């Protein structure tokens, strides 16, 4: 039971950090950036050379996150800025190509085999009779929670955050208010790619550092974003929580009573094999598009 909650929280942490950036870039530039999940991959790998230099892990992670954020800004300048007035399909195709480039560059530089962060041996902590949680798992949940709270404070309480929301609402009017919208767009890339990198580092902490870390999450991240209402960062958090827990719960439960009730002949326990877990966000994604395409918190356009 506790394990389901921990798994759900960790999944929520990873997905929400990645989804927030995807949804923010969509909110301002109005295109789904397929390359976004690769910021997670890039961020998780950039920690490796920094850690190899002997930099303490948290600092190495922070530097990798900032570096990834800057990569996001540079890619916008180099590619997406030239396509500002292009139709969204063109931007999406460009982002798809860019995603392949980042993913394969990572594979070319670091090779095909996965890496592990060297953090030494950390003992799991028992929580009564419920189960165990590792210090790394606690760290993942705390890091994500802090990042999200800081982001919320930025968005809701600061002048910059209000300007980010204003630009997402209506970029020409933001310009008519004296906001340099290109600077706001750069800030959104910085934060979005940086949060994606943090998400990737957390995936690396929880499992391994792999070249397909981001790509393996693309359905989950898009499903979370669209479920919550694309363009709305709070929607992305909500969507990530729903997807994260839907995954951890549906992997943990025994489906045989339901199947029997539906009239299927089943014997013993029936679990969804982990290899098929992407079916869950996919199903949620399709259901969302059919029932409420604007998402839970999305406004009808």
């Amino acid at each position, binding site marked *: 039971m506790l394990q389901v909650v921990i798994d759900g929280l960790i999944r929520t942490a990873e997905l929400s950090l990645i989804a927030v950036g995807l949804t923010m870039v969509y909110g301002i530039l109005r295109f789904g950036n397929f390359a976004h999940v690769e910021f997670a991959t890039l961020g998780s790998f950039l920690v490796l050379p920094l850690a190899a230099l002997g930099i303490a892990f948290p600092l190495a992670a922070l530097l990798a996150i900032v570096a990834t954020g800057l990569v996001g800004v540079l890619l916008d300048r180099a590619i997406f800025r030239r396509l500002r007035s292009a139709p969204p399909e063109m931007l999406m195709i460009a982002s798809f190509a860019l995603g392949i480039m980042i993913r394969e560059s990572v594979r070319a530089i670091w090779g095909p085999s996965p890496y592990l962060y060297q953090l030494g041996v950390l003992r799991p902590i028992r929580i009564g009779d419920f189960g165990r949680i590792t210090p790394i798992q606690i760290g993942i949940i705390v890091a994500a929670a802090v990042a999200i709270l800081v982001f919320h404070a930025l968005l809701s309480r600061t002048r910059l955050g209000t300007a980010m929301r204003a630009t997402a609402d*209506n970029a020409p009017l933001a310009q*008519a208010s004296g906001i340099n919208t290109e600077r706001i767009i750069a800030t959104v890339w910085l934060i979005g790619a940086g949060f994606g990198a943090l998400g990737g580092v957390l995936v690396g902490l929880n499992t391994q550092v792999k070249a397909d870390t981001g790509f393996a999450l693309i359905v989950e991240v898009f499903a979370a974003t669209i479920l919550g209402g694309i363009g709305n960062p709070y929607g992305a958090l909500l969507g990530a929580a729903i997807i994260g827990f839907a995954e951890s719960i549906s992997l943990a439960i025994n489906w045989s009573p339901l199947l029997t009730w539906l009239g299927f002949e089943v014997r013993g326990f029936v679990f969804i094999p982990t290899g098929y877990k992407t079916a869950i966000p996919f199903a949620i994604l399709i259901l969302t598009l059919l029932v409420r395409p604007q998402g839970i918190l999305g406004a009808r356009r």
Partner: protein
Amino acid sequence: MSALIEVDTVVAGYGENEILHGISLSLAEREIVTIIGPNGAGKSTLLKVVMGYLIPKSGTVRFKGKDVTRQRPDQRVRNGIAYVPQLDNVFPSLTVAENLRMGGYTLPRGRVAERIERVYAEFPILAERRGQRVRTLSGGQRQLLAMGRALMTEPEVLLLDEPSAALSPLMAGEVFAKVAEINAGGRAILIVEQEAARSLAISHRGYVVVDGHNAYDGPARTILDDEKVRAAFLGGPVPPRRPAAPAGDGAPPNG
């Protein structure tokens, strides 16, 4: 009276599609000028050129004698121009107060609160709704908020694109009364209007734009009174003479 804004033989459009074919106009200090013309004539496009959303293919836009043709909109705001688009002129997911705060984005931080209070004093309905999201406002309240947002910077020039469009006649009357009041406070205003008679009634001068060309210009009263212009572009009865003399020297300035 020197010209605040001078548009000089501007040619502009969207991509290959040329909309303005060499248009000129001027706006003097403390003046209200209305641009009228049939739908699709390029009036909104002209305002976008004045604000800097469109860079003309040729011709110049000068503000206080300085060439600003290539300045970005946000830079023009800093120099003292404000703009209220016809549609989408507020931030729908922001509160009323946040909309005004964004209007004051270029102000020194210490001055924003004081300016917001001034706008509330001018538009009391906005003060009542300060914490509400804009989605919940009526069309008329949105138009007032849009003007309040634009006035946050105390601009020297206010550009209004069809401020009365989609409003009830009563609300439109209120909006025009506000516009006249804002002008009486010393701000120059350039209005694009379909509701030409009411807008000209509070204006010093008017321009008629047809198919991206200057078709006619002169004192607002002349446009209202001129049978030929009226027949071609207006229609309807002549509204009552403007009660108060315009700000400045009292006589409609000539361009």
